[in-house]
Protein backbone atom coordinates (compact mmCIF):
# COMPACT_ATOMS: atom_id res chain seq x y z
CA UNK A 1 0.00 0.00 0.00
CA UNK A 2 1.52 3.27 -1.06
CA UNK A 3 1.38 6.17 1.38
CA UNK A 4 -1.62 8.40 1.12
CA UNK A 5 0.31 11.55 0.65
CA UNK A 6 0.48 14.03 -2.16
CA UNK A 7 2.68 17.05 -2.20
CA UNK A 8 0.54 19.43 -4.17
CA UNK A 9 -3.19 19.61 -4.43
CA UNK A 10 -4.79 19.73 -7.87
CA UNK A 11 -8.50 20.52 -7.69
CA UNK A 12 -10.98 19.12 -5.21
CA UNK A 13 -12.59 15.86 -6.28
CA UNK A 14 -16.10 16.59 -5.01
CA UNK A 15 -18.27 19.54 -4.02
CA UNK A 16 -20.61 19.19 -1.07
CA UNK A 17 -24.15 20.56 -1.23
CA UNK A 18 -25.98 22.01 1.77
CA UNK A 19 -27.64 18.69 2.63
CA UNK A 20 -24.22 16.98 2.55
CA UNK A 21 -22.86 19.53 5.01
CA UNK A 22 -25.87 19.01 7.31
CA UNK A 23 -25.11 15.25 7.34
CA UNK A 24 -21.46 15.85 8.23
CA UNK A 25 -22.35 18.33 10.99
CA UNK A 26 -25.00 15.93 12.35
CA UNK A 27 -22.29 13.26 12.71
CA UNK A 28 -20.13 15.57 14.84
CA UNK A 29 -23.12 16.53 16.99
CA UNK A 30 -24.03 12.87 17.50
CA UNK A 31 -20.56 11.68 18.56
CA UNK A 32 -20.18 14.58 20.99
CA UNK A 33 -23.64 13.84 22.39
CA UNK A 34 -22.68 10.20 22.95
CA UNK A 35 -19.52 11.30 24.78
CA UNK A 36 -21.53 13.73 26.90
CA UNK A 37 -24.15 11.09 27.70
CA UNK A 38 -21.50 8.56 28.78
CA UNK A 39 -19.46 10.93 30.93
CA UNK A 40 -21.22 9.79 34.11
CA UNK A 41 -20.26 6.19 33.41
CA UNK A 42 -16.52 6.60 33.40
CA UNK A 43 -15.72 7.26 37.04
CA UNK A 44 -13.70 4.16 37.97
CA UNK A 45 -10.62 2.66 36.37
CA UNK A 46 -12.58 -0.36 35.12
CA UNK A 47 -15.16 1.97 33.57
CA UNK A 48 -12.78 4.46 32.00
CA UNK A 49 -10.08 2.08 30.73
CA UNK A 50 -12.04 -1.16 30.19
CA UNK A 51 -15.59 0.11 29.52
CA UNK A 52 -16.71 -1.68 32.71
CA UNK A 53 -15.97 -5.04 31.03
CA UNK A 54 -19.66 -5.24 30.15
CA UNK A 55 -19.73 -5.15 26.34
CA UNK A 56 -21.78 -7.77 24.54
CA UNK A 57 -20.15 -9.99 21.92
CA UNK A 58 -21.73 -7.98 19.11
CA UNK A 59 -20.60 -4.58 20.40
CA UNK A 60 -17.08 -5.81 21.21
CA UNK A 61 -16.85 -7.66 17.88
CA UNK A 62 -17.95 -4.74 15.70
CA UNK A 63 -15.75 -2.37 17.67
CA UNK A 64 -12.81 -4.79 17.27
CA UNK A 65 -13.36 -4.73 13.52
CA UNK A 66 -14.01 -0.99 13.29
CA UNK A 67 -10.81 -0.06 15.12
CA UNK A 68 -9.02 -1.36 12.03
CA UNK A 69 -11.51 -0.09 9.46
CA UNK A 70 -10.14 3.43 9.25
CA UNK A 71 -10.55 5.76 6.33
CA UNK A 72 -6.92 5.42 5.31
CA UNK A 73 -7.25 1.63 5.21
CA UNK A 74 -10.42 1.93 3.13
CA UNK A 75 -8.88 4.30 0.62
CA UNK A 76 -5.45 2.66 0.67
CA UNK A 77 -6.69 -0.87 0.04
CA UNK A 78 -9.19 0.31 -2.60
CA UNK A 79 -6.13 1.88 -4.26
CA UNK A 80 -4.23 -1.39 -3.85
CA UNK A 81 -7.08 -3.24 -5.55
CA UNK A 82 -6.80 -0.84 -8.49
CA UNK A 83 -3.02 -1.37 -8.50
CA UNK A 84 -2.78 -5.13 -7.82
CA UNK A 85 -6.26 -6.43 -8.63
CA UNK A 86 -8.26 -8.85 -6.50
CA UNK A 87 -5.04 -10.10 -4.85
CA UNK A 88 -5.44 -7.17 -2.45
CA UNK A 89 -8.20 -9.27 -0.89
CA UNK A 90 -5.49 -11.30 0.83
CA UNK A 91 -5.27 -8.48 3.38
CA UNK A 92 -8.86 -9.23 4.41
CA UNK A 93 -9.03 -13.01 4.06
CA UNK A 94 -5.84 -14.93 4.80
CA UNK A 95 -4.42 -11.71 6.24
CA UNK A 96 -7.08 -11.46 8.96
CA UNK A 97 -9.59 -14.30 9.34
CA UNK A 98 -7.30 -17.13 10.55
CA UNK A 99 -5.71 -14.74 13.06
CA UNK A 100 -9.07 -13.60 14.38
CA UNK A 101 -10.21 -17.19 14.85
CA UNK A 102 -6.89 -18.06 16.53
CA UNK A 103 -7.34 -15.11 18.89
CA UNK A 104 -10.87 -16.22 19.75
CA UNK A 105 -10.26 -19.91 20.34
CA UNK A 106 -6.64 -20.11 21.52
CA UNK A 107 -5.39 -16.83 22.95
CA UNK A 108 -8.45 -15.09 24.33
CA UNK A 109 -8.91 -17.46 27.30
CA UNK A 110 -5.44 -16.51 28.59
CA UNK A 111 -5.96 -12.78 28.10
CA UNK A 112 -9.37 -12.94 29.70
CA UNK A 113 -8.64 -15.24 32.64
CA UNK A 114 -5.51 -13.29 33.60
CA UNK A 115 -7.76 -10.17 33.86
CA UNK A 116 -4.98 -8.10 32.37
CA UNK A 117 -5.72 -4.54 31.34
CA UNK A 118 -3.46 -4.73 28.30
CA UNK A 119 -1.14 -6.87 26.19
CA UNK A 120 1.97 -5.42 27.92
CA UNK A 121 0.16 -6.26 31.17
CA UNK A 122 0.07 -9.93 30.11
CA UNK A 123 3.79 -9.78 29.29
CA UNK A 124 4.44 -8.52 32.83
CA UNK A 125 2.56 -11.48 34.30
CA UNK A 126 4.27 -14.01 32.04
CA UNK A 127 7.77 -12.62 31.43
CA UNK A 128 8.28 -9.92 34.05
CA UNK A 129 8.74 -6.17 34.17
CA UNK A 130 11.51 -5.73 31.53
CA UNK A 131 9.37 -7.32 28.80
CA UNK A 132 6.39 -5.20 29.79
CA UNK A 133 8.48 -2.03 29.84
CA UNK A 134 9.97 -2.71 26.39
CA UNK A 135 6.57 -3.53 24.91
CA UNK A 136 4.63 -0.74 26.68
CA UNK A 137 7.07 2.07 25.94
CA UNK A 138 7.46 1.10 22.28
CA UNK A 139 3.69 0.68 21.88
CA UNK A 140 2.79 3.95 23.61
CA UNK A 141 5.39 5.94 21.71
CA UNK A 142 4.55 4.49 18.32
CA UNK A 143 0.77 4.57 18.80
CA UNK A 144 0.65 8.25 19.50
CA UNK A 145 3.04 8.99 16.61
CA UNK A 146 0.97 6.83 14.25
CA UNK A 147 -2.11 8.71 15.35
CA UNK A 148 -0.42 11.96 14.31
CA UNK A 149 0.71 10.54 10.99
CA UNK A 150 -2.80 9.30 10.23
CA UNK A 151 -4.20 12.67 11.32
CA UNK A 152 -2.04 14.51 8.83
CA UNK A 153 -2.70 11.99 6.06
CA UNK A 154 -6.45 12.28 6.60
CA UNK A 155 -6.31 16.09 6.67
CA UNK A 156 -4.43 15.89 3.39
CA UNK A 157 -7.11 13.59 1.97
CA UNK A 158 -9.82 16.03 3.08
CA UNK A 159 -7.90 18.79 1.33
CA UNK A 160 -7.65 16.78 -1.87
CA UNK A 161 -11.19 15.42 -1.84
CA UNK A 162 -13.12 18.37 -0.39
CA UNK A 163 -10.73 21.29 -0.55
CA UNK A 164 -10.81 21.70 3.24
CA UNK A 165 -8.02 23.59 4.98
CA UNK A 166 -5.54 21.20 6.63
CA UNK A 167 -5.46 23.10 9.93
CA UNK A 168 -9.26 23.06 10.10
CA UNK A 169 -9.39 19.28 9.55
CA UNK A 170 -6.66 18.56 12.11
CA UNK A 171 -8.05 20.71 14.91
CA UNK A 172 -11.77 19.99 14.48
CA UNK A 173 -11.28 16.21 14.34
CA UNK A 174 -8.68 16.03 17.11
CA UNK A 175 -10.64 18.25 19.51
CA UNK A 176 -13.80 16.23 18.90
CA UNK A 177 -11.96 12.97 19.64
CA UNK A 178 -10.29 14.51 22.71
CA UNK A 179 -13.66 15.62 24.08
CA UNK A 180 -15.59 12.40 23.65
CA UNK A 181 -12.79 10.07 24.81
CA UNK A 182 -11.92 12.26 27.80
CA UNK A 183 -15.58 12.33 28.82
CA UNK A 184 -16.58 8.71 28.24
CA UNK A 185 -13.32 6.78 28.13
CA UNK A 186 -13.14 3.45 26.30
CA UNK A 187 -16.93 3.01 26.36
CA UNK A 188 -17.34 6.22 24.39
CA UNK A 189 -14.66 5.14 21.90
CA UNK A 190 -16.34 1.74 21.46
CA UNK A 191 -19.83 3.21 20.97
CA UNK A 192 -18.53 5.54 18.29
CA UNK A 193 -16.64 2.72 16.58
CA UNK A 194 -19.83 0.68 16.28
CA UNK A 195 -21.60 3.76 14.91
CA UNK A 196 -18.76 4.20 12.43
CA UNK A 197 -19.15 0.58 11.28
CA UNK A 198 -22.74 1.23 10.24
CA UNK A 199 -21.92 4.59 8.66
CA UNK A 200 -19.16 3.08 6.53
CA UNK A 201 -21.41 0.37 5.17
CA UNK A 202 -24.29 2.81 4.63
CA UNK A 203 -21.99 5.32 2.96
CA UNK A 204 -19.94 3.07 0.70
CA UNK A 205 -22.09 0.02 -0.14
CA UNK A 206 -23.84 1.87 -2.96
CA UNK A 207 -20.59 2.07 -4.94
CA UNK A 208 -20.30 -1.69 -5.63
CA UNK A 209 -24.06 -1.99 -6.18
CA UNK A 210 -24.19 0.78 -8.80
CA UNK A 211 -20.74 -0.11 -10.14
CA UNK A 212 -21.73 -3.71 -10.87
CA UNK A 213 -24.92 -2.42 -12.52
CA UNK A 214 -22.88 -0.12 -14.75
CA UNK A 215 -20.27 -2.77 -15.54
CA UNK A 216 -22.94 -5.30 -16.47
CA UNK A 217 -22.35 -7.79 -13.65
CA UNK A 218 -19.36 -9.68 -12.29
CA UNK A 219 -18.64 -11.67 -15.45
CA UNK A 220 -18.53 -8.57 -17.62
CA UNK A 221 -16.44 -6.78 -15.00
CA UNK A 222 -13.81 -9.54 -15.15
CA UNK A 223 -13.71 -9.31 -18.94
CA UNK A 224 -13.24 -5.53 -18.85
CA UNK A 225 -10.47 -5.80 -16.25
CA UNK A 226 -8.71 -8.47 -18.29
CA UNK A 227 -8.83 -6.16 -21.31
CA UNK A 228 -7.68 -3.01 -19.51
CA UNK A 229 -5.15 -4.60 -17.15
CA UNK A 230 -4.46 -8.34 -17.11
CA UNK A 231 -6.16 -11.70 -16.60
CA UNK A 232 -4.18 -12.06 -13.34
CA UNK A 233 -6.01 -9.08 -11.81
CA UNK A 234 -9.09 -11.19 -11.10
CA UNK A 235 -7.40 -14.21 -9.51
CA UNK A 236 -6.55 -14.45 -5.82
CA UNK A 237 -4.16 -17.43 -5.82
CA UNK A 238 -3.46 -18.70 -9.33
CA UNK A 239 -0.58 -16.28 -9.99
CA UNK A 240 1.22 -16.86 -6.70
CA UNK A 241 3.39 -19.72 -7.94
CA UNK A 242 6.23 -17.28 -8.55
CA UNK A 243 7.11 -13.64 -7.90
CA UNK A 244 6.90 -12.65 -11.58
CA UNK A 245 3.45 -14.11 -12.35
CA UNK A 246 1.35 -11.60 -10.44
CA UNK A 247 1.03 -7.81 -10.14
CA UNK A 248 1.99 -7.81 -6.45
CA UNK A 249 5.47 -9.28 -7.04
CA UNK A 250 5.25 -11.85 -4.28
CA UNK A 251 4.82 -15.62 -4.03
CA UNK A 252 2.59 -17.88 -1.94
CA UNK A 253 5.25 -18.34 0.75
CA UNK A 254 5.24 -14.62 1.51
CA UNK A 255 1.44 -14.48 1.53
CA UNK A 256 0.82 -17.61 3.60
CA UNK A 257 3.69 -17.41 6.08
CA UNK A 258 4.68 -13.72 6.03
CA UNK A 259 1.21 -12.17 5.86
CA UNK A 260 -1.06 -14.96 7.11
CA UNK A 261 1.05 -16.59 9.80
CA UNK A 262 3.08 -13.66 11.15
CA UNK A 263 1.97 -10.12 10.26
CA UNK A 264 -1.72 -10.89 10.53
CA UNK A 265 -1.32 -12.99 13.68
CA UNK A 266 0.85 -10.30 15.20
CA UNK A 267 -1.55 -7.48 14.44
CA UNK A 268 -4.87 -9.14 15.29
CA UNK A 269 -3.72 -10.99 18.41
CA UNK A 270 -1.18 -8.69 20.08
CA UNK A 271 -1.82 -5.12 18.87
CA UNK A 272 -3.49 -3.65 21.93
CA UNK A 273 -5.43 -1.18 19.78
CA UNK A 274 -7.72 -4.01 18.64
CA UNK A 275 -7.32 -6.48 21.53
CA UNK A 276 -8.45 -3.83 24.05
CA UNK A 277 -11.96 -3.95 22.52
CA UNK A 278 -12.22 -7.68 23.20
CA UNK A 279 -10.94 -7.35 26.76
CA UNK A 280 -13.97 -5.12 27.40
CA UNK A 281 -16.34 -8.06 26.77
CA UNK A 282 -18.70 -8.99 29.61
CA UNK A 283 -17.72 -12.67 29.91
CA UNK A 284 -15.45 -15.29 28.37
CA UNK A 285 -18.02 -16.53 25.87
CA UNK A 286 -18.58 -12.97 24.63
CA UNK A 287 -14.81 -12.43 24.48
CA UNK A 288 -14.46 -15.54 22.32
CA UNK A 289 -17.47 -14.76 20.14
CA UNK A 290 -16.44 -11.14 19.52
CA UNK A 291 -13.45 -11.87 17.22
CA UNK A 292 -15.53 -14.53 15.42
CA UNK A 293 -18.28 -11.99 14.76
CA UNK A 294 -15.59 -9.56 13.61
CA UNK A 295 -14.16 -12.25 11.31
CA UNK A 296 -17.59 -12.97 9.84
CA UNK A 297 -17.99 -9.33 8.80
CA UNK A 298 -14.34 -8.91 7.87
CA UNK A 299 -14.73 -11.53 5.12
CA UNK A 300 -17.20 -9.28 3.37
CA UNK A 301 -15.40 -5.94 3.79
CA UNK A 302 -13.77 -6.49 0.33
CA UNK A 303 -17.23 -5.77 -1.11
CA UNK A 304 -16.90 -2.12 -0.06
CA UNK A 305 -13.11 -1.81 -0.41
CA UNK A 306 -11.67 -4.17 -3.04
CA UNK A 307 -14.66 -4.20 -5.39
CA UNK A 308 -14.71 -0.38 -5.80
CA UNK A 309 -11.01 -0.54 -6.71
CA UNK A 310 -11.68 -3.26 -9.31
CA UNK A 311 -14.67 -1.32 -10.64
CA UNK A 312 -12.44 1.72 -10.96
CA UNK A 313 -10.19 -0.31 -13.25
CA UNK A 314 -13.14 -1.10 -15.47
CA UNK A 315 -15.32 2.02 -15.58
CA UNK A 316 -13.16 5.07 -14.83
CA UNK A 317 -12.23 6.83 -18.08
CA UNK A 318 -8.84 8.02 -16.82
CA UNK A 319 -5.90 5.83 -15.84
CA UNK A 320 -4.82 6.28 -12.24
CA UNK A 321 -1.10 6.45 -11.44
CA UNK A 322 1.24 6.04 -8.45
CA UNK A 323 1.25 8.81 -5.84
CA UNK A 324 4.69 10.02 -6.90
CA UNK A 325 3.59 10.38 -10.53
CA UNK A 326 0.30 12.07 -9.59
CA UNK A 327 2.19 14.65 -7.55
CA UNK A 328 4.18 15.63 -10.66
CA UNK A 329 1.50 15.38 -13.34
CA UNK A 330 -1.43 16.67 -11.29
CA UNK A 331 -3.47 13.57 -12.14
CA UNK A 332 -5.24 11.21 -9.79
CA UNK A 333 -3.42 8.48 -7.90
CA UNK A 334 -4.50 4.91 -7.08
CA UNK A 335 -5.49 6.09 -3.62
CA UNK A 336 -8.07 8.45 -5.12
CA UNK A 337 -10.11 5.60 -6.57
CA UNK A 338 -12.63 5.37 -3.70
CA UNK A 339 -13.49 9.10 -3.61
CA UNK A 340 -13.56 9.12 -7.42
CA UNK A 341 -16.09 6.30 -7.41
CA UNK A 342 -18.02 8.08 -4.67
CA UNK A 343 -18.18 11.22 -6.80
CA UNK A 344 -19.17 9.10 -9.84
CA UNK A 345 -22.34 7.63 -8.35
CA UNK A 346 -23.35 9.68 -5.30
CA UNK A 347 -25.46 12.81 -5.61
CA UNK A 348 -26.55 15.22 -2.86
CA UNK A 349 -27.08 13.48 0.46
CA UNK A 350 -25.35 10.27 -0.55
CA UNK A 351 -22.11 12.16 -1.06
CA UNK A 352 -22.42 13.66 2.42
CA UNK A 353 -22.94 10.19 3.88
CA UNK A 354 -19.92 8.82 2.02
CA UNK A 355 -17.72 11.68 3.21
CA UNK A 356 -19.08 11.22 6.74
CA UNK A 357 -18.11 7.55 6.54
CA UNK A 358 -14.52 8.55 5.72
CA UNK A 359 -14.41 11.13 8.53
CA UNK A 360 -15.96 8.65 10.98
CA UNK A 361 -13.40 6.04 9.98
CA UNK A 362 -10.56 8.43 10.63
CA UNK A 363 -11.90 9.72 13.95
CA UNK A 364 -12.68 6.32 15.42
CA UNK A 365 -9.24 5.10 14.36
CA UNK A 366 -7.71 8.04 16.17
CA UNK A 367 -9.92 7.45 19.23
CA UNK A 368 -8.76 3.83 19.21
CA UNK A 369 -5.13 4.89 19.17
CA UNK A 370 -5.66 7.45 21.91
CA UNK A 371 -7.66 5.16 24.22
CA UNK A 372 -5.09 2.35 23.84
CA UNK A 373 -2.25 4.81 24.48
CA UNK A 374 -4.02 6.14 27.56
CA UNK A 375 -4.46 2.67 29.06
CA UNK A 376 -0.91 1.52 28.37
CA UNK A 377 0.58 4.77 29.66
CA UNK A 378 -1.47 4.73 32.86
CA UNK A 379 -1.37 1.02 33.73
CA UNK A 380 1.90 -0.14 32.18
CA UNK A 381 4.21 2.86 32.43
CA UNK A 382 2.94 5.43 34.94
CA UNK A 383 1.67 3.06 37.64
CA UNK A 384 4.56 0.53 37.74
CA UNK A 385 7.43 2.92 36.96
CA UNK A 386 6.41 6.34 38.32
CA UNK A 387 3.63 6.22 40.93
CA UNK A 388 2.48 2.82 42.17
CA UNK A 389 0.54 4.10 45.19
CA UNK A 390 -2.14 6.25 43.60
CA UNK A 391 -5.85 5.73 44.19
CA UNK A 392 -8.23 4.49 41.49
CA UNK A 393 -9.56 8.04 41.21
CA UNK A 394 -6.02 9.31 40.67
CA UNK A 395 -5.44 6.88 37.80
CA UNK A 396 -8.73 7.84 36.15
CA UNK A 397 -7.67 11.51 36.34
CA UNK A 398 -4.33 10.51 34.87
CA UNK A 399 -6.21 8.72 32.07
CA UNK A 400 -8.26 11.81 31.25
CA UNK A 401 -5.21 14.07 31.17
CA UNK A 402 -3.26 11.50 29.18
CA UNK A 403 -6.05 11.49 26.58
CA UNK A 404 -5.66 15.24 26.11
CA UNK A 405 -1.86 15.06 26.09
CA UNK A 406 -1.97 12.12 23.64
CA UNK A 407 -4.15 14.11 21.26
CA UNK A 408 -1.84 17.12 21.53
CA UNK A 409 1.23 14.98 20.80
CA UNK A 410 -0.62 13.56 17.80
CA UNK A 411 -1.39 17.08 16.58
CA UNK A 412 2.27 18.01 17.07
CA UNK A 413 3.33 14.94 15.09
CA UNK A 414 0.90 15.88 12.32
CA UNK A 415 2.51 19.32 12.01
CA UNK A 416 5.97 17.75 12.13
CA UNK A 417 5.04 15.46 9.24
CA UNK A 418 3.70 18.50 7.40
CA UNK A 419 7.18 20.03 7.56
CA UNK A 420 9.18 16.83 6.99
CA UNK A 421 7.13 14.42 4.86
CA UNK A 422 9.74 11.64 5.01
CA UNK A 423 9.00 11.21 8.74
CA UNK A 424 5.76 9.54 7.70
CA UNK A 425 7.55 6.61 6.07
CA UNK A 426 9.86 6.20 9.05
CA UNK A 427 7.05 6.20 11.60
CA UNK A 428 5.01 3.66 9.60
CA UNK A 429 8.08 1.45 9.29
CA UNK A 430 8.89 1.77 13.00
CA UNK A 431 5.42 0.56 13.93
CA UNK A 432 5.87 -2.61 11.91
CA UNK A 433 9.12 -3.45 13.71
CA UNK A 434 7.39 -4.54 16.91
CA UNK A 435 4.38 -6.51 15.66
CA UNK A 436 5.94 -9.78 14.44
CA UNK A 437 8.36 -10.41 17.32
CA UNK A 438 5.71 -9.44 19.86
CA UNK A 439 3.46 -12.16 18.46
CA UNK A 440 6.31 -14.68 18.80
CA UNK A 441 6.84 -13.73 22.43
CA UNK A 442 3.16 -13.74 23.41
CA UNK A 443 2.25 -16.97 21.65
CA UNK A 444 5.26 -18.83 23.09
CA UNK A 445 4.38 -17.43 26.49
CA UNK A 446 0.84 -18.78 26.23
CA UNK A 447 1.54 -22.16 24.66
CA UNK A 448 4.99 -23.20 25.97
CA UNK A 449 5.42 -23.36 29.74
CA UNK A 450 9.21 -23.81 29.41
CA UNK A 451 9.64 -20.26 28.04
CA UNK A 452 11.48 -18.27 30.70
CA UNK A 453 11.49 -14.58 31.56
CA UNK A 454 14.96 -13.99 30.15
CA UNK A 455 14.13 -16.00 27.04
CA UNK A 456 10.98 -13.99 26.41
CA UNK A 457 12.69 -10.64 26.90
CA UNK A 458 15.74 -11.45 24.75
CA UNK A 459 13.56 -13.03 22.05
CA UNK A 460 11.44 -9.88 21.85
CA UNK A 461 14.52 -7.66 21.80
CA UNK A 462 16.42 -9.68 19.17
CA UNK A 463 13.35 -10.08 16.93
CA UNK A 464 12.80 -6.31 17.00
CA UNK A 465 16.48 -5.61 16.28
CA UNK A 466 16.38 -8.11 13.41
CA UNK A 467 13.39 -6.31 11.88
CA UNK A 468 15.10 -2.91 12.22
CA UNK A 469 18.34 -4.27 10.72
CA UNK A 470 16.63 -5.71 7.63
CA UNK A 471 14.64 -2.53 7.05
CA UNK A 472 17.82 -0.42 7.33
CA UNK A 473 19.72 -2.80 5.05
CA UNK A 474 17.13 -2.49 2.26
CA UNK A 475 16.84 1.27 2.85
CA UNK A 476 20.61 1.71 2.37
CA UNK A 477 20.86 -0.86 -0.45
CA UNK A 478 17.52 -1.52 -2.21
CA UNK A 479 19.03 -4.49 -4.07
CA UNK A 480 19.27 -6.28 -0.70
CA UNK A 481 15.56 -7.03 -1.06
CA UNK A 482 16.52 -10.08 -3.14
CA UNK A 483 18.17 -11.58 -0.04
CA UNK A 484 15.43 -10.65 2.39
CA UNK A 485 12.62 -11.99 0.14
CA UNK A 486 14.76 -14.74 -1.44
CA UNK A 487 14.01 -13.60 -5.00
CA UNK A 488 15.30 -10.98 -7.42
CA UNK A 489 11.71 -10.49 -8.67
CA UNK A 490 10.41 -9.40 -5.25
CA UNK A 491 8.64 -6.02 -5.00
CA UNK A 492 7.87 -3.64 -2.12
CA UNK A 493 5.16 -5.57 -0.28
CA UNK A 494 7.33 -8.70 -0.29
CA UNK A 495 9.81 -6.85 1.94
CA UNK A 496 7.16 -6.23 4.60
CA UNK A 497 5.99 -9.83 4.60
CA UNK A 498 9.43 -11.49 4.59
CA UNK A 499 10.88 -8.99 7.09
CA UNK A 500 8.08 -9.94 9.48
CA UNK A 501 8.67 -13.63 8.84
CA UNK A 502 12.41 -13.45 9.62
CA UNK A 503 11.98 -11.31 12.73
CA UNK A 504 9.39 -13.77 14.04
CA UNK A 505 11.73 -16.69 13.37
CA UNK A 506 14.60 -14.93 15.15
CA UNK A 507 12.35 -14.11 18.12
CA UNK A 508 11.20 -17.73 18.44
CA UNK A 509 14.67 -19.22 18.03
CA UNK A 510 16.25 -16.86 20.58
CA UNK A 511 13.40 -17.40 23.05
CA UNK A 512 13.68 -21.19 22.76
CA UNK A 513 17.48 -21.32 22.98
CA UNK A 514 17.74 -18.91 25.92
CA UNK A 515 14.82 -20.56 27.73
CA UNK A 516 16.38 -24.00 27.46
CA UNK A 517 19.62 -22.59 28.82
CA UNK A 518 18.01 -20.90 31.82
CA UNK A 519 16.23 -22.12 34.90
CA UNK A 520 12.54 -22.99 34.31
CA UNK A 521 9.88 -20.79 35.86
CA UNK A 522 8.01 -22.67 38.63
CA UNK A 523 4.58 -23.91 37.53
CA UNK A 524 3.00 -22.11 40.48
CA UNK A 525 3.93 -18.77 38.88
CA UNK A 526 2.41 -19.72 35.54
CA UNK A 527 -1.07 -20.76 36.62
CA UNK A 528 -3.70 -18.93 34.59
CA UNK A 529 -1.12 -17.77 32.05
CA UNK A 530 0.01 -20.84 30.11
CA UNK A 531 -1.63 -23.69 28.24
CA UNK A 532 -1.64 -26.83 30.38
CA UNK A 533 -1.57 -24.87 33.63
CA UNK A 534 -4.77 -22.94 33.09
CA UNK A 535 -8.24 -24.21 33.74
CA UNK A 536 -10.42 -22.57 31.14
CA UNK A 537 -13.96 -22.13 32.53
CA UNK A 538 -16.58 -24.06 30.62
CA UNK A 539 -18.79 -21.99 28.34
CA UNK A 540 -21.76 -23.59 30.03
CA UNK A 541 -24.56 -25.85 28.92
CA UNK A 542 -25.53 -23.93 25.80
CA UNK A 543 -26.86 -25.23 22.48
CA UNK A 544 -24.35 -25.95 19.72
CA UNK A 545 -25.31 -22.82 17.78
CA UNK A 546 -24.27 -20.64 20.75
CA UNK A 547 -20.79 -22.12 21.02
CA UNK A 548 -17.83 -20.13 19.63
CA UNK A 549 -16.29 -23.23 18.01
CA UNK A 550 -19.45 -23.76 15.95
CA UNK A 551 -19.38 -20.25 14.47
CA UNK A 552 -15.61 -20.34 14.01
CA UNK A 553 -16.04 -23.51 11.93
CA UNK A 554 -18.69 -21.83 9.77
CA UNK A 555 -16.47 -18.78 9.21
CA UNK A 556 -13.55 -21.07 8.29
CA UNK A 557 -15.65 -23.03 5.79
CA UNK A 558 -16.93 -19.83 4.12
CA UNK A 559 -13.37 -18.49 3.98
CA UNK A 560 -12.13 -21.61 2.19
CA UNK A 561 -15.10 -21.48 -0.19
CA UNK A 562 -14.46 -17.83 -1.08
CA UNK A 563 -10.80 -18.53 -1.81
CA UNK A 564 -11.72 -21.44 -4.07
CA UNK A 565 -14.40 -19.42 -5.90
CA UNK A 566 -12.00 -16.56 -6.62
CA UNK A 567 -8.90 -18.79 -7.02
Amino acid at each position, binding site marked *: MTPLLATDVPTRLVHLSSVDIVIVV*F*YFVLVLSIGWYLKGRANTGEDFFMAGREMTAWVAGLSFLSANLGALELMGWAGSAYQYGIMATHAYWIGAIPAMLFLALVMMPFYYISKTHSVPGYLKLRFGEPSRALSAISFAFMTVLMSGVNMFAMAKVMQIVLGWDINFSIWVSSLTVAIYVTLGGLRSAIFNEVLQFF*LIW*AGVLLIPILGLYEAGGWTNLKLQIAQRASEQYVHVWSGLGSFSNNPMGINWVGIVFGLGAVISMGYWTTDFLVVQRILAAKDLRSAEMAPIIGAGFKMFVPIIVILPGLLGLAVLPEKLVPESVAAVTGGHSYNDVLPLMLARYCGPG*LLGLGVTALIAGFMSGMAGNVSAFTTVWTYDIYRPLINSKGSDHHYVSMGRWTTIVGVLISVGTAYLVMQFASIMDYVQALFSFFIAPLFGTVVLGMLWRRATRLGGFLGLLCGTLCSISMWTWVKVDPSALRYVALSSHAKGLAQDYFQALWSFVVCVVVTVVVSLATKPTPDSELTGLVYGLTEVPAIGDVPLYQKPIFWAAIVAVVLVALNIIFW
Partner: protein
Amino acid sequence: MVSIWFFIGISLAVNGALILGAGIYQLINPPLHPGIVLFNLHANLWWGALLLVIGGLYCIKFAPGRQS
Protein backbone atom coordinates in the same frame (compact mmCIF):
# COMPACT_ATOMS: atom_id res chain seq x y z
CA MET B 1 -28.58 3.15 30.00
CA VAL B 2 -29.49 4.00 26.40
CA SER B 3 -28.48 1.21 24.04
CA ILE B 4 -25.79 1.80 21.43
CA TRP B 5 -28.26 0.40 18.88
CA PHE B 6 -30.63 3.27 19.63
CA PHE B 7 -27.92 5.80 18.74
CA ILE B 8 -27.28 3.88 15.52
CA GLY B 9 -30.99 3.94 14.78
CA ILE B 10 -31.04 7.72 15.21
CA SER B 11 -28.03 8.10 12.93
CA LEU B 12 -29.47 5.92 10.15
CA ALA B 13 -32.95 7.42 10.40
CA VAL B 14 -31.82 11.06 10.31
CA ASN B 15 -29.33 10.44 7.50
CA GLY B 16 -31.94 8.40 5.63
CA ALA B 17 -34.52 11.17 5.97
CA LEU B 18 -32.08 13.81 4.72
CA ILE B 19 -30.99 11.67 1.74
CA LEU B 20 -34.60 10.76 0.91
CA GLY B 21 -35.53 14.44 1.08
CA ALA B 22 -32.72 15.32 -1.32
CA GLY B 23 -33.86 12.50 -3.61
CA ILE B 24 -37.48 13.72 -3.64
CA TYR B 25 -36.32 17.27 -4.37
CA GLN B 26 -34.25 16.03 -7.31
CA LEU B 27 -37.16 13.94 -8.56
CA ILE B 28 -39.42 16.98 -8.58
CA ASN B 29 -36.73 19.36 -9.83
CA PRO B 30 -34.38 17.25 -11.97
CA PRO B 31 -31.08 19.05 -12.59
CA LEU B 32 -30.05 19.77 -16.18
CA HIS B 33 -26.59 18.34 -15.54
CA PRO B 34 -26.78 15.79 -12.72
CA GLY B 35 -23.00 15.35 -12.62
CA ILE B 36 -23.22 11.68 -11.69
CA VAL B 37 -23.50 8.41 -13.57
CA LEU B 38 -26.78 6.43 -13.36
CA PHE B 39 -28.75 9.45 -12.14
CA ASN B 40 -31.82 7.85 -13.74
CA LEU B 41 -31.80 5.17 -11.02
CA HIS B 42 -32.42 7.84 -8.33
CA ALA B 43 -30.24 6.02 -5.82
CA ASN B 44 -30.66 8.67 -3.15
CA LEU B 45 -34.41 8.07 -3.21
CA TRP B 46 -34.44 4.33 -2.47
CA TRP B 47 -31.20 4.23 -0.47
CA GLY B 48 -32.44 7.07 1.74
CA ALA B 49 -35.78 5.29 2.20
CA LEU B 50 -34.00 2.04 3.11
CA LEU B 51 -31.81 3.77 5.72
CA LEU B 52 -34.84 5.55 7.14
CA VAL B 53 -36.77 2.28 7.53
CA ILE B 54 -33.84 0.40 9.11
CA GLY B 55 -33.01 3.33 11.39
CA GLY B 56 -36.67 3.69 12.37
CA LEU B 57 -36.91 0.00 13.27
CA TYR B 58 -33.78 0.28 15.42
CA CYS B 59 -35.16 3.37 17.15
CA ILE B 60 -38.41 1.60 17.97
CA LYS B 61 -36.88 -1.71 19.04
CA PHE B 62 -34.15 -0.17 21.18
CA ALA B 63 -35.99 2.89 22.45
CA PRO B 64 -34.85 3.73 26.02
CA GLY B 65 -38.30 3.03 27.46
CA ARG B 66 -38.33 -0.50 26.07
CA GLN B 67 -34.96 -1.47 27.57
CA SER B 68 -34.75 -3.14 30.96
